[in-house]
């Protein structure tokens, strides 16, 4: 492609969107997973199922409902605009879309992982004098971390690939909200297979690079004795 900006700008936008969405889900998904794993109340499995719904809706439709919710004339729209938050047709709309779509990918593995953590080890931390928060960050989270990380990487990948909901909320504005995915989609739709292939290659490289980096930064624990 003659114009490098045609690759770089969408790439930067995509990385920003996926990065923010992953960060948001690191916090919200982990917190929700923890809460559902540890609290005991009758409706929690129902809530668990409801939180998974962003996965079953076609992204475009999800985008449609998000628009109904946060659009200028939406339910939360006036409130958001009083706060000075503009989501529709901005990169923050893309972040919202990507976060919602990938939320279940973090929250469900996090819940499963927290449920598997040996409670005895938390007890061991308590008697050593560690408070609830310290126990969480020093014992529980590290023990659940690999599963959560695996969910975060899926969420990152999904955020990079998201375009249905993103397009609905953020639109496709070159240089502002046109992410790699939207670019790829449009190139394919326009029959520009060469341009599409180039953007696909860039996306794939980013994804593979990120995953390889994650493998490097968090190698599996040294294998134990089989005996």
């Amino acid at each position, binding site marked *: 492609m003659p114009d490098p900006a045609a690759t770089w700008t969408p790439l930067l936008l995509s990385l920003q969107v996926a990065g923010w969405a992953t960060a948001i889900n690191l916090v919200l998904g982990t917190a929700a997973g923890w809460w559902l794993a540890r609290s005991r109340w009758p409706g929690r499995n129902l809530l668990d199922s409801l939180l998974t719904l962003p996965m079953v809706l076609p992204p475009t439709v999800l985008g449609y409902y998000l628009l109904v919710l946060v659009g200028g004339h939406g339910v939360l729209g006036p409130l958001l605009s009083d706060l000075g938050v503009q989501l529709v047709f901005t990169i923050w709309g893309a972040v919202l879309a990507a976060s919602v779509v990938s939320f279940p990918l973090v929250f469900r593995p996090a819940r499963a992982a927290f449920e598997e953590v040996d409670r005895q*080890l938390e007890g*061991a931390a308590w*008697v050593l004098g560690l408070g609830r928060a310290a126990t969480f*960050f020093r014992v529980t989270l*590290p023990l659940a971390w690999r599963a959560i990380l695996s969910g975060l990487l899926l969420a990152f990948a999904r955020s990079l690939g998201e375009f249905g909901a993103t397009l609905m909320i953020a639109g496709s504005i070159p240089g502002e909200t046109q992410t790699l995915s939207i670019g790829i989609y449009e190139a394919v739709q326009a029959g520009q297979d060469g341009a599409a292939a180039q953007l696909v290659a860039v996306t794939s490289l980013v994804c593979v690079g990120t995953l390889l980096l994650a493998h490097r930064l968090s190698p599996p624990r040294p294998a134990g004795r089989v005996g």
Partner: protein
Amino acid sequence: MTPQRTGPPVWDLEFTAALGRGPGRFRLTVRRQLWQRRTALVGPSGSGKSLLLQTLAGLIRAEQGRLAFGGESLQDTAQGLWVPPQRRRLGYMFQDYALFPHLTVAQNLAAGRRRGWLNPPRRVRDPQVDVWLDRLGLRRAADLYPHQISGGQAQRTALGRTLLAGPRALLLDEPFSALDPALRLELSHELLALLSSLDLPVILVTHDPAEAERLTDEVVAL
């Protein structure tokens, strides 16, 4: 030995604690004052020795009743009082060690010496930890993870971790069972010296009558 009955008893126990639910539920009732600073707890396997220590440590809540340490109430269901394990500062050593699998032996030892949200670093080492690595014969294993060490090494790590946290009393659940006789003797001497110097009360679960004799002032059977 006649107990010196001045002041409150070391342990004042009158409670019921239980494990499990339904018909198979295991229930333990204790009504006893311990006046000696060093008590050995004996009893057949499955009789509730570990459950008793866990209730004292605050890991299990008594269903009903009260327990006090040195006159200080730790739980009292009548008053709705319950002091969480973090604030009891009692050193409970787990029978199956409960070592942190993601931390090395040295980090496990340092775990209780550091507050805050970060685990002790792998490189920098607290001088006290260094002292105890030698004392417990764990120098070679310092950088190994729990699943890489021998049974006896794991037991010593658990003991060291408990002592290094600076507890007000010790609750030791068979601390020497996995050790060879020489090491056992050596470590129990160490422990005895430590107990005298720090004047720490201790409850020791053991199956070894000689050990009970040597280390404690009174034997309580469950």
